[in-house]
């Protein structure tokens, strides 16, 4: 190796510094969450004894079970539908000779850089007119729509990369368009679809703006949206706020640590748009 022990040591030191920058805030919150429940935590201290019971209090006060359930319902309402619609459309647009195919692709891609802020007021009045403001549909429906540009682009790119010979072979065997989709294309699209699924899941679970703007009742929101309300209510009780926040982010952390390879892969591919 050309890398000398000295430069290897600098490398390790630099990397450790970056890791500390990432991890120290999280440990800071954990240490605050474990302080005595009536105390006002101070700075840079290791609490003793460790008050694990704070997590039980926060579990109840922050309504963790109903919030997880609420987020789960929103995810189930958004992700499968968005996956199916995006996959269908990506497949359709990747076919040869689609009328207005190019115009439609451009129409979808045009939505890629559009921030949710540009849509939040009209969506609010649209949902009000539909009488959905106290209903999870008020966020489920817009999210499916907002996810289409990326998903369609993503799946179209995938399907366009499949060799034509493969499809022609199936067609000569007399397979219908649906049959080709179902038994030839779909199995090949597995990894593209699962990466898209991870992205859709994360974006939905972490959705904040639309969640607080379009749903009045915090218990109907996503976990991320409920964090806003929780912080508003308990901003003075730092111990409880930290414990509750950790509980709310725990599922994302656990899922990430289990599927880290897939998560990193999906987010990286997802950014190459």
């Amino acid at each position, binding site marked *: 190796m050309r890398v000398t022990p000295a430069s290897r040591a600098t490398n390790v030191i*630099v990397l450790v510094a970056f*890791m500390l920058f990432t991890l120290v805030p999280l440990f800071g919150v954990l240490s605050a969450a474990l302080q005595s429940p009536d105390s006002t935590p*101070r*700075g840079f201290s290791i609490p003793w004894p460790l008050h694990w019971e704070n997590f039980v209090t926060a579990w109840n006060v922050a309504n963790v079970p109903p919030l997880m359930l609420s987020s789960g319902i929103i995810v189930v309402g958004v992700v499968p539908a968005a996956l199916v619609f995006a996959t269908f459309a990506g497949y359709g647009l990747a076919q040869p000779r689609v009328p207005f*195919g190019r115009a*439609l692709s451009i129409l979808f891609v045009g939505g890629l850089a559009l*921030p949710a*802020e*540009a849509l939040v007021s009209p969506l609010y009045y649209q949902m009000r007119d539909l009488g959905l403001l106290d209903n999870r549909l008020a966020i489920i429906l817009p999210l499916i729509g907002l996810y289409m540009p990326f998903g369609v682009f993503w799946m179209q790119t995938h399907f366009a990369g499949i060799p034509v010979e493969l499809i022609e072979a199936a067609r000569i065997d007399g397979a219908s368009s649906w049959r080709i989709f179902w038994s030839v294309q779909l199995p090949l699209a597995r990894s593209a679809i699962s990466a898209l699924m991870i992205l859709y899941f994360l974006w939905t679970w972490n959705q904040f703006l639309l969640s607080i703007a379009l749903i009045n009742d915090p218990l109907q929101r996503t976990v991320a949206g409920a964090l*806003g309300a929780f912080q508003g209510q308990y901003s003075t009780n730092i111990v409880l706020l930290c414990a509750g926040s950790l509980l709310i982010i725990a599922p994302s952390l656990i899922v990430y640590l289990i599927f880290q390879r897939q998560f990193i892969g999906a987010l990286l591919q997802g950014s190459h748009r």
Partner: protein
Amino acid sequence: MTLPTESRSRAPRPRGARLRLRWNPAALLWVLPALIMYAAFELYPLTQTVRYSFYRWDGIGVATWSGFDNYVRVFTDAEQFASVVHAFVLILFFTVIPVGLGLVAAAVIRELRRGPFASVAQVVLFLPQVLPLAAAGIIWTWIYAPDGMINGFLRAIGLGFVTRDWLSDFDFALPAVGVIGSWVSLGFCTVLLLAGIGKIDPSLYEAARLDGANRVQEFLAVTLPGLRREIVVACSVTIIAALSSFDVIYVATNGGPGYQTLVPGLEIYHLTFTSQQVGSASALAVVLTVLILAVVIPLQRLGRRTG
């Protein structure tokens, strides 16, 4: 679903007839569900945003036509204009710092690639990327608090005189929320750039070594040019995040103190839901969208040209 028909005959036909034969309208059925959802919940609201932006409307009563007044206010109203300026300041923290540090981290991880340490570092650095941004806001609110970690640390090392309530400080609040953005984006940029380094032809590093290049020269001559595509992607994603930031700032400062950390996203939210000035909010939303496109489209061109 009908079979997409291939026109096998090469015989010349009237132009119109041939086009009709070669088209595959059945494919449109596949696109229809996505198109309906996209049209109903993104394209339609977008047209409404543009429409509202030309009216004075409180969201309930009668809207009155106001021409370009709302657009003029985006640039003349101190608060609204400040929000746009802040969004661009945040690019320093959301984009420049994480991409810069990410380059360093990626180069370092490349040299350490044999150890398990490098892969652990990747997983750790990437972690903030999967958390809700609102959670990042809450975590850092405590870190920055008057009795929080940063001030505690400063007191411990004898720098008690520089302690302050960071998020309520007129000069430091914007950089402070900016650092939260750096914290979120660093791992993303690192991992993205690292993947790019993996695609660089190893013989280029070999050649640089034979030429006697030191690490800095090697980085400038091989790594940096090889990463142009990845740098463009990292910049695009993080610039969009900076210009349309909302979650972190809503939670950490809600725009304060005064309007020192106000950003367009937050101003749009306040104008719509607090002060019921839907027209103003919409004009700002249109300006924000145009600004994002004006920055991202040239960047993407750059990426495509070199990639």
